[in-house]
């Protein structure tokens, strides 16, 4: 084996996330890292992954990273250019397998805040954009993925506002609230580890730690108690081929991977 490959944390997160997207699945993505992960998946294990954007773009042959989920790249040489309602209805109908979300705060059940910091919505300390399509996608897609750096401020015990539903308050809570059964958060890919959700409690459970990361580092970066898989693995680092595709074909101008 040649010497160890060099990669940054953004490249690592994108490569790991891409491996979860299987061939012939459908995914609604935004711009940034999720889009890069979906494009990389198409060039590796999932050539027939169907990418959709919430504003109406379906199946584009993305020439570059979009700057907006509604810009013309999102349906460049696409299969269909339709409406936002049509994309969301496709999710509600049960035909969207994956989506990616991010947020200012995430709790142990995968609930996400992207609305505000503070206690008074009419006078928040920080006004954030709001749901956009995030709450819809988190409600309606089968599996919600997150790519996010991990730190205590972001991984917090209590959200200031639940913008988008994870497992709400635990097992059965989504179904009780009326959200479609069988849907919910799937994996959280951070710069330290990959986290899944425990079947019994629906709480975050660490599945693998990235090379060089310790349990202590992860606990330090988390504002709540994490569960741990019986056998916590070491995340399989990016391969030379994944890195080549990511750097040369997916993001040659380093718009995303240059932000690490």
């Amino acid at each position, binding site marked *: 084996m040649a010497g160890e490959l060099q990669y940054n944390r953004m490249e690592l997160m994108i490569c790991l996330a891409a491996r979860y997207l299987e061939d012939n699945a459908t995914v609604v993505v935004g711009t940034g*890292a999720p889009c890069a992960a979906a494009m990389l998946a198409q060039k590796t294990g999932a050539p027939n992954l169907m990418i959709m954007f919430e504003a109406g773009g379906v199946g584009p042959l993305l020439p570059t*990273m979009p700057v907006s989920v509604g810009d013309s790249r999102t349906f460049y040489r696409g299969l269909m250019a339709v409406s936002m309602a049509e994309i969301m209805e496709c999710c509600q109908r049960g035909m969207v397998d994956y989506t990616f*979300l991010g947020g200012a705060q995430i709790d142990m059940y995968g*609930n996400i805040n*992207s609305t505000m910091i503070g206690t008074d919505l009419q006078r928040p300390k920080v006004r954030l954009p709001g749901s*956009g*399509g995030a709450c819809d996608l988190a409600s309606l897609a089968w599996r919600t993925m997150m790519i*996010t750096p991990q730190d205590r401020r972001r991984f917090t015990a209590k959200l200031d506002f639940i913008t988008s539903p994870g497992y709400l308050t635990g097992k059965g809570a989504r179904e009780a609230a009326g959200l479609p059964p069988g849907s919910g958060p799937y994996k959280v890919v951070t710069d330290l580890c990959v986290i899944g959700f425990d079947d019994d409690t629906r709480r975050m459970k660490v599945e693998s730690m990235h090379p060089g990361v310790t349990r202590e580092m992860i606990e330090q970066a988390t504002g709540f108690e994490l569960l741990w898989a019986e056998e916590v693995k070491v995340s399989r680092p990016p391969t030379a081929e994944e890195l080549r595709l990511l750097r040369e074909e997916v993001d040659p101008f380093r718009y995303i991977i240059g932000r690490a």
Partner: protein
Amino acid sequence: MEVNRVGQGRLFMDPDVDRARDFFRHKSRRMANKVTTVREAITRFVHDGDYIAVGGFGGSRIPTALLHEIVRQGRKNLGLSGHTATHDCQILVGAGCVNRCDVAYVVGLEARGLSRASRRAFESGSVEVTEWTNAQLAWRYKAAAMGVPFLPSRSALGTDTARHGAAVEITCPFTGVKLLAVPALYPDVALIHVHRADVYGNCQIDGILVADVDLARAARTLIVSCERLVPNEEIRRDPGRTVIPYFCVDAVVEVPYGSYPGNMPYEYFSDEDHLRLWLEVEEDPEEFERFLDRYIRNTRDFNQYLELCGGIGRLQELRALEFLIHGVRGPGGGAQGGAGAGAPAGGAEGGEGPGAPGGAAAAEGAGAKGGAR
């Protein structure tokens, strides 16, 4: 039917379908020439206090010239449908025209960062908000377009988004599942930019439609701006292309490059440099006021704004970018204005899209600007 009023937010607009029918009954069906000027259209159809909805997708196919004219004429106390409102929100809220907003997505410019001026408005309490999602607002337009008072949906149940919205939880009379009923939204005025329209207002759009097909039908008054006026014969040659019929339309204005600095699919790409300038000047409220004066309030019309921003030369560059004439690399080598190219220093990283995928990932928690991580 069991009903649970989960939403504590204020319902700004009346979802009464019969009052709406009565209004539409008296809306003119005359196939008259509706071509007018930007100034005249706003003078006549947009009034202080009106509730406005904007077509397109925030920074893509937006009616910028019409939005500028609202600012130029100093409209006040407008309601705004914050459906993927990015640059449009930045203009109207930033310039102080808005006092209430149905929020699905505001304040952010996706990967580009957060608008300081809009944030100041929302954080100071000068804009009253009710929370929604992009799908909910799209379905609210759709309900209005259908002429029904609400649509049932399965999104947002159990969230604070619903608790601070104005939707109502109901139980399905057929299957017993819980649903969220989102009320019809009939805006007073919709502003939509299209590729082509004839003088009567029959419109064609190329590429994604976002929510504009339903919005055009939901709005009591509809002002259309178009890249090009075309003869009625061009509409009739391919009626399947007509997405908005003339009888929904009250005014037609021809505004070439009317979505600038937004993207216009198959015409020109967004001007990321100019959008970055907006974000920069907003950091200082006084500088932003001077900027609004210079670029909007004291300009004669939209053409003068285009000239201030580099005129035909710049627009040619944006056309080349849209068509990837020089490949993905662009004439300068990499200056394609793609995600992140336009990001402010420090990175609007992860600003993945109106909400979706990451909506506010851009929004690093406690207020760091534009999502610097």
